[in-house]
């Protein structure tokens, strides 16, 4: 089973994201700025992580430049269903469980990071310093790749966004 990453790009992504996404899926080892034709300057990197500034900010994965509109209740409902089946065995709202409490994750991380963590967890916990630290904090229990499509991950994000809006006091 494959994710639908390249087959069904969600509507709100930009053209730049599409190019990056395609390159990432096709090449695997492609340079970080592959496909970004108008960015001649060397990408900023963290000396310690070896990641580009974009990767540090947005996470490692297909999602870049996500533009959020108003909260979409239908999408959040769909996300809640997906979350229940694919995610709730390890994540609970308002409490630390096998994985972190996610009730405030949309305030702590940018949307792209959240979606990349869902879509590309193996590489995130291996390379991204924030994800690596959490991986260690949570006893190296793997963040399972549950084969969500980008559309699924976007819906889960919308659900998390609504949870965060409803429960602003909860802390990780």
């Amino acid at each position, binding site marked *: *089973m494959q994710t639908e990453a390249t087959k069904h790009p969600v509507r709100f992504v930009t053209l730049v994201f599409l190019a990056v996404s395609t390159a990432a899926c096709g090449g695997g080892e492609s340079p970080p700025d592959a496909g970004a034709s108008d960015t001649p300057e060397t990408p900023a990197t963290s000396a310690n992580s070896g990641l580009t500034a974009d990767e540090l900010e947005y996470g490692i994965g297909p999602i870049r430049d996500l533009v959020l509109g108003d909260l979409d209740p239908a999408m959040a409902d769909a996300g809640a269903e997906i979350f*229940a*089946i*694919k995610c709730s*065995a390890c994540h609970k709202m308002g409490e630390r469980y*096998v994985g972190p409490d996610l009730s405030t994750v949309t305030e702590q991380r940018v949307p792209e990071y959240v979606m990349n963590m869902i879509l590309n967890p193996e590489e995130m916990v291996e390379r991204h310093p924030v994800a690596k630290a959490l991986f260690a904090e949570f*006893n*190296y*229990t*793997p963040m399972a790749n549950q084969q969500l499509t980008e559309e699924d991950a976007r819906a889960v994000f919308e659900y998390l966004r609504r949870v965060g809006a409803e429960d602003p006091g909860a802390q990780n």
Partner: protein
Amino acid sequence: MTNSRIRLAMLVAAVAFAGAFTYACQTSSGPAAGAGDAASEVYVAPGEHDEFYAFMSGGFSGNVTVHGLPSGRLIKTIAVFSQYPENGWGYSEETKDMLRTSFGLIPWDDSHHPQLSQTDGIPDGRWLFINGNNTPRVARVDLSKFETEEIIEIPNSGGNHASPFITPNSEYVIASTRFSVPIPQADVPIATFKENFSGTLTFIRADQPGEMDIAFQIHVPGFDYDIAHSGRQVSDGWAFFTTYNTEQEHTLLEVNASQADKDFVAAVNWRRAETCVAEGAGSVVPGQYVHNVMGEDRIGRSELKNSVRMIEPADCSDMIYFLPTPKSPHGVDVDPTGEYIVAGGKLATTIPVHSFSKMIDAIANEQFETVIDGIPVLEYEAVLAGEVQEPGLGPLHTEFDADGNAYTSMFISSEVVKWRLGTWEVLDRQEAYYSTGHLMIPGGDSSQPFGKYVVALNKITKDRYLPTGPELAHSAQLIDISGDNMRLLLDFPTMGEPHYAQGLPAELVTANQVQMFDLTENTNPYATLTEADARIERDGSTVHVYMTTIRSHFAPDNIEGIMVGDTVLFHVTNLEQDWDVPHGFAVIGARNSELLVMPGETRTLRWVPQRVGVFPFYCTDFCSALHQEMQGYIRVSERGSNPTIAYGTGG
């Protein structure tokens, strides 16, 4: 039987034995390996894949093993006819009905001959069929999952050996009685064999997954029907079966069934039989058999059937003929063009090759020696294409390459002999270690041999590996056939006793692989799709535990409220949705096996607690760094104490 006949038979046996003994002495100091660069030719670097899949029958293991070629590496055991505690096959509630027969659950069989599904006579990588010899059955393995999905029992049979040789578009897989029996079964003296015993040739519809069925059986004389192959290309529409014990003896067959100079190859025109059946020929006769199918919900279900359509040769003219064939023939192999039918007369001094076109002419000209039970016996010379002279001792089985060459195993003289179709000239010999049975060239019994290697599936191992006590792994040998001369490249051990094997280019199988089951499409009625739904329900003395797994915990992992003697059904759903993340489930005192649950799948283990106490269960398949923490407890109270059910995880 006269004394002189006995003496003659014993003399033949003694000569054969002496030949084998002499040969063994010669080969014990023979070369240990092939050319010096053989290692590089079979080396598959770490992380690289083999070029071919080889599917080896598991013999008396009842299963199938999958090896890569050229490395010979064992990469999978597919549970088929035998319970397999490694993954719960035949033990779990979802799979145990797959081993059901008209005799009840039979936990074992003897599997001999794998056959790949074919399209236009070419292996297509969809399914693998294999026979169960002992309690006659045929199984279909789905090669997108490497799982057995269907098993059908064969009624009115004894020893399903000539099976499940497939027709060129997988229309049928075939079966037969190696051991003739009273049909229908009856309480008769064994000494009345000649009057009361007979055989059947069975055609099983095979091209609709989940709908295998006995299309018809042909009632034939009481011989032993040994091995078969279907016709192809020019002979498409026919199937060929070897026979032995045409003497119709019932005791000391190694002597008594070796008297006749010739037995037969039975040639069956199955398209003609289809026509007769369509016209209502034959009759519906009793015959209990069970058909087991793994459903789309991944639960095996059994259906008992009670009758089959049986055709007598007299019911359907032009359907079946006997081709005289020396001597107690074993294998019968059809070349890629379909014209040549090669019989391995295991006691013969030649390899006889029949011609399909000459057979058709002989039928048209009615060149019959005699008629047996309504079956015309064609004249040997009228159907013979040629004989390979002095091929060696004990020819058994023949495979083909794409260049008009045939390769025959010589059991007694322990070698593989390459010869030329049409000229019958022996071209090359390769010693084998020891006593080769079947051979396998990828695609070598199809219209399109893929060539490159022949695997010799040897019956005797002796000194080929480090010794392991009295019982030794069987020995296979990989032989390069890409040049004029065969070259021995590799020995590798095989599991059970592989008889026949099948091989094909890996990409025909890898293209269709299933990596996991979609959790959202899990329709097992006892599935638990979210951890929030994990629960326990008591129904009288049956307790259903709806359990989930994910790295690395069970939900629930603390269970109370169970009593001694309850039937506890652990319905374990693996919530993982990633490749290669099964979880196992094992509980102390389970008198069946573990469960191995694939991502997205539900499997159920029955457990009847016998003692009061608190008992652990745990995940058996190392799943993460916290795998050792993937454990739980189930509390068992006195019968009748009616404890409150309680359960949970975390908190």
